[in-house]
């Protein structure tokens, strides 16, 4: 749940994030080892400009958040549990992808996302996810020569099958 106050807080946080990114880039640019004395403009100038831009815009955003307030005046409702479900589904996929492989990690992501959108038919969803990920793996790995991971757990099994 996010009310008007929450949204205003979001704007302030966004402005601060922009500011922080600017300061970070400025610091990194400052501490960058100096090379290329031969070139008139080194690799530092542009990062410096971008950092300055970010810092100025970050300050401007703070000013705007305080004076004019949020664009959506009556605030916006956020369903955080559903949001977290999708976000953690994506994270799990990253963690599991290379061991469990594209098919299982993708299916898990499919089921979790579908649940976040209110579908409770987990078995049906799992079957659809399984079909979709298997299809993409077959089409892309065999047809288009891309390498979606089969998963380190299953690779010995595949090798054994091929022998």
């Amino acid at each position, binding site marked *: 749940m996010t009310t008007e106050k929450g*949204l205003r807080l*979001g*704007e302030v946080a*966004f402005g601060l994030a*922009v500011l922080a*990114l*600017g300061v970070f880039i400025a610091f*990194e640019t400052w501490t*960058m*080892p100096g*090379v*290329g004395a031969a*070139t*008139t*403009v080194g*690799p530092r*100038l*542009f*990062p410096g400009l*971008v950092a300055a831009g*970010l810092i100025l815009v*970050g300050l*401007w*955003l703070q000013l*705007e958040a305080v004076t004019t307030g949020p664009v*959506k005046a009556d605030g*916006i*409702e*956020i*369903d*955080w549990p*559903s*949001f977290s479900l*999708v*976000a953690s589904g*994506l994270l799990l*996929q*990253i963690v599991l*992808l290379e061991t469990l492989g*594209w098919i299982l990690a*993708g299916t898990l*992501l*499919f089921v979790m*996302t*579908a649940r*976040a*959108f*209110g579908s409770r038919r987990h078995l049906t*969803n799992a079957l*659809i*996810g399984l079909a*979709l*990920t298997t299809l*993409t793996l077959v089409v*892309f790995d065999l047809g*288009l*020569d*891309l*390498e*979606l991971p089969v998963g380190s757990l299953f690779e010995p099994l595949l090798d054994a099958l091929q022998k």
Partner: protein
Amino acid sequence: MDTLSALLHGFTVALTPYNLMWSAIGVTLGTAIGVLPGIGPALTVALLLPVTYNLDPTSAFIMFAGIFYGAMYGGSTTSILLNTPGESASIVTALDGHAMARKGRGAQALATAAIGSFVAGTIATVALTFVAPLMVRIALAFGPAEYFALMVLSLTTVTAVLGDSLPRGLASLFFGLALGLVGIDLQTGQARFSLGVPELLDGIDVVVVAVGLFAVGETLYNAARHRYEPEEMYDLKGSKWMSKEDWARSWKPWLRGTLIGFPIGALPAGGSEIPTFLSYLTEKRLSKHPEEFGHGAIEAVAGPEAANNASAAGVLAPLLSLGLPTSATAAIMLAAFQQYGLQPGPLLFENNSSLVWGLIASLYIGNVLLLVLNLPMAGVWVKLLAIPRPWLYAGILIFATMGAYTLNNNLVDLVILWVIGLIGFGMRVLDIPVAPCIVGLILGPMAEQQFRRALAISQGDLSVFVTHPISLGLLLTGLLLVVVPVLLRRRRAKYTTA
């Protein structure tokens, strides 16, 4: 003339059965993906990039042209029947198009959009055929200073024009520029902002950022909002054909929309938001029934849709002849070119003329294919709109993660996708435009190179940017575009308080 024979050659390339097949696959996939709610043309092109990895460049870009035009057609279906414009250029279509659908005139709205897109697309492609070589000739006179000024101009217009708040647009732009800094500096070999991660030395891929902002960010946003925003979907019913009156009220807006859309799209000022709004306002002023606007006036669908498609063709002119992307979709297309080791610009016309002209010829062909595909098959695309949302968004994430992973086959891209997705969610909640970020990411490094090249030639003398007349003119235009709206807004505020 030169251009005509080049175009004819292009047709012989594009009309081979093999390339014709890729064009047909492109328009079909483009329409099918573009029709899905929440997927605009930029994301459609980004998601379909992996499909083309193994094609030769000519066929790949013929397919891209089809995907690009197809996604535009598909997007208008979504905004008319579902009122969820996939990108800012379709917002205007959604206003009256959805009102028509509510009155049971959805089929007519779709028809005027499709035929209008065909008319506008064809005229604009003809214009592109002749404007692009002219631009190439101008581009040959450009040095690094002029290129830099041109890029600054297009960055400022993309930023200043979008959204109602300048600092928000700027924040998005600078975020994109910051992402563009990551990786090895091409001129000195200095690693910048790679945080010790070797995979970051190659920089952050614009496709990952686009998919993260559009697909992952959008899905997170919809997951968080679907309980509060029930959708209203209107099926097609009644007569499928446009009446005589519909035709009479549509043809002039089509032509006017084209006239507005192409030049604005072709200028480095770019974007398709302004032409669609301009077309809407023009039609409202010229209409005999201004009171119908907002309640389902057919002119308000015909004009902006034509303007949208014409500007989409217009955007290709600076993209192909100058290598300058002026919309998010064009930025992704440029990334696609770079993936094939091609750099759009005058040299591309010189060295890869059969690719460029094959691409342009396939735009003509794609337009015809789309008209054939869309009028009778509108009902099929409408079925796609009815996919249950849990499966639709879960599927979008599957394809988004697949696209990001297969770019370089490493998990780092998936991590970046996740982070960018969260940021995209935040930007969506706070109403921050994403197009400046994507254009900034791809134009930033190019602008830096031209900037440094210009200064290397002038031996560090900063005045090159203002002593070259073209460069000075472009920079001044950019400055005006930022300053004038701010002043206007301030004046308006003064009037309302006084």
